[in-house]
């Protein structure tokens, strides 16, 4: 693993050498500079819904609905006009089963997808 990392590192260094001039953040009057610089950060994503779990399937919003395997783009959230959020697949199932007019499962208002 060490070797592999080292090898990649050299490649990365070479490709970014051209940009060396463009970031001089380290050049603040000191006599050393950090020039070749890559910051590989880690983040987690969230749907940023008000609630933790989907009101229909009771699964976490940041997870996925029972029919899906992969969270994120494959199983998106959708907000209604009433500002309640559900897994898209869950609410579609609900809406399709309700004729002629579907209501929000949470507040019983008429269901409309938020613009």
């Amino acid at each position, binding site marked *: 693993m060490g070797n592999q990392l080292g090898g990649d590192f050299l490649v990365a260094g070479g490709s970014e050498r051209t940009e060396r001039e463009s970031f001089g*953040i380290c050049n603040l009057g000191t006599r050393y500079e950090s020039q070749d610089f*890559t910051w590989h950060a*880690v983040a987690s*994503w*969230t749907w940023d819904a008000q609630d933790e779990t989907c009101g229909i399937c009771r699964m976490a919003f940041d997870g996925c609905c029972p029919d899906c395997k992969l969270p994120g783009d494959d199983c998106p959230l959708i907000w209604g006009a009433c500002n309640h959020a559900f897994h898209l697949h869950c609410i579609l199932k609900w809406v399709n089963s309700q004729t002629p007019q579907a209501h929000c499962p949470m507040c019983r208002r008429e269901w409309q997808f938020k613009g």
Partner: protein
Amino acid sequence: MEAVDDSESSQMCNLAVLDSLNEDLIGEIDDSWNGFCLSTEALLKGNGDLSFASDFVKQVQNLCSRGLDSLVIEHFLGSLEETFEKNGASRFWRHFDAYGDLAVLEMNDQDQQDEIQQVLHNALEEISSEKQYQEKCLSLLVHALQTYRENKSDGQISSDAKCNLLFSKYHLTLSSVLMTSLPRHFPDVLHWYFKGRLEELSTIMATGYEDDSALQAEDEMDLDEKSKLSCRTGKMDIDGSHLHGIFLGNNKLVKNIGMLVRDLRNLGFTSMAEDAYASAIFFLLKTKVHELAGDDYRSSVLESIKRWIQAVPLQFLHALLAYLGDSKSNGSPSSGLKSPLASYPSSDYYGTGTPSEGLVRWQLRLEYFAYETLQDLRIAKLFEIIVDYPDSSPAIEDLKQCLEYTGQHSKLVDSFISSLRYRLLTAGASTNDILHQYVSTIKALRSIDPAGVFLEAVGEPIREYLRGRKDTIKCIVTMLTDGAGGNPSGPGSTGDSLLEELNRDEENQENFGLDDDVNTDDKQAWINAQSWEPDPLEADPLKGSRYRRKVDILGMIVGIIGSKDQLINEYRVMLAEKLLNKSDYDIDSEIRTLELLKIHFGESSMQKCEIMLNDLIDSKRTNTNIKASIKQQPQPAADLREHEMSLDNINATIISTNFWPPIQDEALNVPGPVDQLLSDYAKRFHEVKTPRKLLWKKNLGTVKLELEFEDRVLQFTVTPLQASIIMQFQDKTSWTSKNLASAVGVPVDVLNRRINFWISKGILAESIEADSSDHKFTLVEALVDSGKTAANVGSCEELLGVDEDGERSVASVEDQLHKEMTVYEKFITGMLTNFGSMALDRIHNTLKMFCIGDPSYDKSLQQLQSFLSGLVTEEKLELREGMYFLKK
């Protein structure tokens, strides 16, 4: 006295005869008896002088005519015995007196060997001539008796039988005389003699391959009758003519031995002689096996041992038996008494003639002995053999063949288990080594015994032991995932092979499926049924039939842990660790491993791991998208100045937290410009992936940076914390630890720990302030001591600092478990307050019974035990005689 004997024995024969006796007759009988005794004595002491013969014959006939023939025979035999005891036996044994002690000593000395050979030959010659002479005397007596009977016109047949009886009686007497006076060391002497001869023979055989033709020519000069006979068979021979050629050279030697054996047989030492040369052959065979097998496991020796058996001992025996005339007398090979393995293609060893039954028996005996010796040798060294398993497979193959003959599998199991206990299952052995050995054991024994019966027995102690080790799961997962085996000291290839095992398994399962399909075919089912074989005797009936007991390495490894869930969990943690420390998005090998694991453990159980890998793939895509979006939007001029470090320098791994193992979140103040870039990145993410948002885990990830000093440029790959620390020194070359800690946003002790990385690299220097609780760190501008950091001069690459201090970004399984278990601490304390003391089992069962709500108790007994022992070390509980108490 003889007269008294005389009258007494006559009385017993016929009392009526006594009445007819008169004084003259008695005198006459007395005279002839005395004459007989004298002539007998003279004859026996005469040393070949047969001048008394006629007198002797006359006396005998005289006595016989009086009906005293039985008395005559008795007396003659008696005096024969007496003479033999006096002249023959005692003199014979006296030859060997000198070797009474020496027989126990080393007999490797060539001179001594020759001497003993000489002595033995001389002694045998002497005693044989003595015997021959006595036999001659006996035949004189027999002749006399015969002529007397012929005169009386007795039946020829009965006298022949009588004469045979006489000779056999004589021989019996002879051998019993010898046996009763047998010195204890004589068998040893014989043994050493044969050993010496055989060794000589085998060296001649060994060297004879080169110059056999010369030898043959030389020896054909002094061929006598017997060797001419073998010579003829040798010439008829097609395949073995080469061997025979050499063997002719040894004919003299064999003939000598044969003569000796025949002499010994004649003296009644048949079984002793046989024992002696058998033990010598076995001894030689044993030495040969040890010499050939030795400590080299890289080549198969069985074939060469067999070849040697045919070349030396069997040729010897063949010649010997031929010389003794056994091969003729022992019946044709087509007789029904043939040994069961006689059909074994052994007939070509001795040319066109089929081997005699005796020889076949010998061959089987020798081969069995060779198998057994080799097997014992290999079993004793099985541990070492398995240590270098893939290289030592020839030795394993040998052992397999040996065991097929001897069937002593249980010996293997016992000896191997004890050596395992002694050498492997000790505190000193690393878990990795044990696992590697376990895998090698499985592989090696699988080839010996495909049904896995003995493996079951051998593997049990290892599994038992490994269950008691804490890092077993971790090691297994490392072995599964790491190509390098994760253990530089151990044999490197075995780690590889566990991954290969995953591959192999995949193929196996495909084949297995195929088998099932074919099984539906009736014909195939019938064939399968016919090829059914019972389990070996040693099989444990509780373990099910061999069809259920498929030898599957991964299955056996998982069997150590008990459930695959634990293994998968550990794998997930390890995968998370690996993925989070990746600075590129290259996960090909991980995907491969995961696919293999999915095949083995099922897709659903690997779901979370798949999502983790998917996150990495998505991150790569998102990362590229975000970078692309920057280029599309022309940056305002003001921004350009401000953003001297651009988003190009930032990469991100974006994870779906719910599916990853709990991640250790520590606060960290990253340097201002980086922080700015990160929030920019998050903003762009929000634009690209509305309405999703990013939450940074600032302490995770990797930073590649290059430090440029006056005289050198250094490159490092470090953790964000280490990067933040060193970047603080851009503005100010000297910091106190307290100030630095607050600037970076971590506790002082964490800082002190982490800053050691830079100190050890010679970038920072530590000095203690006047206020002793505070440390001061200064940037080292130039290398003063060039020797110290010479290796660092120039562009130097460093591994992740993470590895050094063992800081992990993912909470370990133990930590998770501990967190989950703390919920039950209250229950346990409550229980113990009520009941006073409880055993582990009872606590486990009570928890299972009562904690059914949220969260329900689903831990194993081992997990509970380790949690409880944690509480004991925290001094909350006390463990006495298997019972847990509350600590007061």
